[in-house]
C-alpha cells in the first residue's frame, strides 16, 4: 500500500457557529466573530493561538482575508482564501490540514460567514458578477439566454439525467424529504415543518425540472472549524476529529460541476462512468473501504447533486441513484444517513460548513437525537469528486 504521510496528521479541534436564519440583524463579520469565539471556547484555545486563516467567505463581502484578520485582531502567518462555492469547501479544509501538517501554522481557523439575505436580489441578477462574467459562470450560466443563476446548471444536468435514466421528480423528492426529516431533529435548522411528497410536487417550478424544495435555502450564518496538528489536538479539550483521507476536486472536459462525469453536459463526452481507483483515493488514504463510511455529507445546493454524489463515489451505479435513495435510505436511521443536520436544503446555507460542523458533532458522539450509532468514519464528498474522510 502506498504511504500517505498526511493520514491522521491534522484534526478539527474546535467548532463554532452563529445563529442561522433569514434577515439576521448582525453583519457578516459579526456573525463570523460569534462563530470564531464559539470555536475557540469549544477547543479551549484563545485568539492568540490562531496563526493561520483559511477563509471561504460569502455573500456579499467577498474574499478579503486581511479584512477578516484586521477585524478580529488576529496576527496570522499563513493564509488561504477561496470564495463561497461548494467546490471550495474541500480545498479550504485540505489546505488547512496541509498547512498544520507541514508546520506552516499551528492552528488554522477555517472561517465561513454569509449574509445572503442582505442583498438577495443580486443572486442570479444583473449584480451577480459571477454568473454574468465572461463565458458565464462555472455552473453553465449563459447570460445572453437568461440562464444566470446556478440553479440553471443543476436543471440542465438533472433534465438530461432524467431523459437518459428515466428518473422522475417524484423520486428526486426523496432527497429534500429525507433532509427535512433530519432537520426536524436539529435545533439550528431554519426549516421546522415536515415536507411531504405532495407538498414537494405541488410547489412551484423554478427551473424545470427543479421545484422550489429542490433548491437550497438562502440564509445568513457563520461557521468556524479550527484545524490543528493531531498531536496538538490530543492535548485540547475535545475529542479530536482526524482528517484521515482526502482527494481533490476534478476538472476538465469530462466534467461539468452539476452533472455526473461524462453525462453529456457542456462539452462532456457521453459514457456510463463508474469510479475507479484514482477516483476513490480518499478511502485508500484513510485505510478504509467505501462500506466503512457510516454517513455521507455533501453540498446539496440542489437536490440532484445528492444523487450525483452517490454515483461519483460508487455507492450506486450510474443512473441508479434516484431509485437508491427511496424508502428512507439516506434519512434518519437509514442505511447511509446523509446531511444529518438538514444540509443546505433544510438546515441553512452556510456554504456547506454547517455539514462540516455536524460531522464533528457526530464523531464526538454529541449529535443528540441525530446521533449515528457507532459513527467512526464520516465522509464529506461532492458531486464534483472531492472528498475528505474524517474519523474519531
Amino acid at each position, binding site marked *: 500500500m502506498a504511504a500517505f504521510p498526511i493520514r491522521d496528521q491534522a484534526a478539527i479541534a474546535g467548532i463554532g457557529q452563529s445563529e442561522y436564519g433569514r434577515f439576521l440583524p448582525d453583519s457578516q463579520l459579526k456573525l463570523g466573530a460569534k462563530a470564531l469565539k464559539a470555536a475557540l471556547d469549544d477547543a479551549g484555545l484563545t485568539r492568540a493561538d490562531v496563526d493561520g486563516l483559511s477563509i471561504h467567505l460569502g455573500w456579499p463581502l467577498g474574499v478579503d482575508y486581511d479584512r477578516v484578520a484586521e477585524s478580529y485582531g488576529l496576527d496570522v502567518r499563513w493564509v488561504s482564501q477561496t470564495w463561497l462555492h461548494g467546490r471550495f469547501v474541500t480545498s479550504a479544509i485540505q489546505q488547512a490540514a496541509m498547512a498544520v501538517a507541514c508546520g506552516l501554522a499551528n492552528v488554522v481557523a477555517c472561517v465561513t460567514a454569509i449574509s445572503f439575505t442582505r442583498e438577495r436580489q443580486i*443572486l*442570479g*441578477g*444583473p449584480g451577480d458578477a459571477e454568473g*454574468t*462574467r*465572461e*463565458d458565464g459562470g462555472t455552473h*453553465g450560466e*449563459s*447570460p*445572453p*439566454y*437568461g*440562464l*444566470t*443563476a446556478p440553479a*440553471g446548471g443543476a*436543471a*440542465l*444536468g438533472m*433534465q*438530461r439525467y432524467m*431523459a*437518459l435514466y428515466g428518473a422522475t421528480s417524484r423520486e428526486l423528492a426523496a432527497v429534500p424529504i429525507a433532509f427535512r426529516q433530519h432537520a426536524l431533529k436539529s435545533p439550528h435548522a431554519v426549516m421546522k415543518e415536515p415536507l411531504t411528497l405532495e407538498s414537494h410536487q405541488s410547489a*412551484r*417550478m*423554478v*427551473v*424545470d*425540472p427543479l421545484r422550489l424544495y429542490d433548491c437550497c435555502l438562502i440564509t445568513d450564518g457563520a461557521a468556524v472549524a479550527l484545524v490543528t496538528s493531531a498531536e496538538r489536538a490530543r492535548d485540547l479539550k475535545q475529542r479530536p476529529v482526524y482528517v484521515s483521507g482526502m482527494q481533490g476536486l476534478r476538472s476538465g*472536459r469530462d466534467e461539468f460541476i452539476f452533472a455526473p462525469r461524462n453525462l*453529456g*453536459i*457542456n*462539452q462532456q463526452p457521453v459514457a456510463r462512468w463508474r469510479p475507479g481507483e484514482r477516483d476513490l483515493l480518499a478511502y485508500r488514504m484513510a485505510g478504509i473501504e467505501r462500506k466503512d463510511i457510516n454517513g455521507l455529507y455533501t453540498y446539496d445546493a440542489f437536490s440532484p447533486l445528492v444523487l450525483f454524489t452517490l454515483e461519483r463515489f460508487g455507492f450506486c451505479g450510474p443512473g441508479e441513484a434516484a431509485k437508491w435513495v427511496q424508502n428512507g435510505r439516506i434519512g434518519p436511521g437509514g442505511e447511509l444517513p446523509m446531511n444529518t443536520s438538514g444540509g443546505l436544503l433544510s438546515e441553512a446555507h452556510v456554504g456547506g460548513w454547517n455539514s462540516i460542523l455536524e460531522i464533528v458533532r457526530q464523531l464526538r458522539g454529541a449529535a443528540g437525537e441525530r446521533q449515528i450509532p457507532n459513527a467512526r468514519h464520516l465522509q464529506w464528498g461532492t458531486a464534483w469528486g472531492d472528498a475528505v474522510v474524517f474519523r474519531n
Partner: protein
Amino acid sequence: MSEYAKPLPRITPDTQPFWDALRERRLILPFCAECGRAHLPPGPVCPFCFSDRLAWRPAAGTGTISTWTVVHKAWFPAFADDVPYNVVQVELDEGPRLTASVVGMPNERLAVGLRVVIDFDHAAAEVTLPRFRPVEAA
C-alpha cells in the same frame, strides 16, 4: 437597437470570428488542423491535442437537443417578460455543444434528442445570437 437590455456575450480575441460570422448568418467552428476535431467554446488551442493550428470552417447548423430547461423565475429583470422561457444545449452534428434557445415551438415539446436547425437572431446592432428551430418547422 441600442436599448437592448439583456446581457450580451463578452467577445474575446478567441471568440471574435465566431460572433463575426453569426452577424453574416453563418455558423463557423474552430477545427484543429492537426487532429481534425472541432471544439467549443472557441479556445486558444485545440483542447484535444493542444495544437495551435486552428482553422475556422462552416458548420452544418444542424444538431440535437442534448439537454434543456425552462426558466420559471424572473432572476434577471430584462427576462421577466419572457418567463417561462427555454434554454437548451444543442449537440451540433460536428460534435461540440452550443448553449442557446429554441424558437418556433411550444416549450412542452422540448425533449432530449429533438433535431434542430440554427436560426439567427439579430438581437443587437453588434451581436447576432444563434437560436434553433425544430427541423420540420425550418
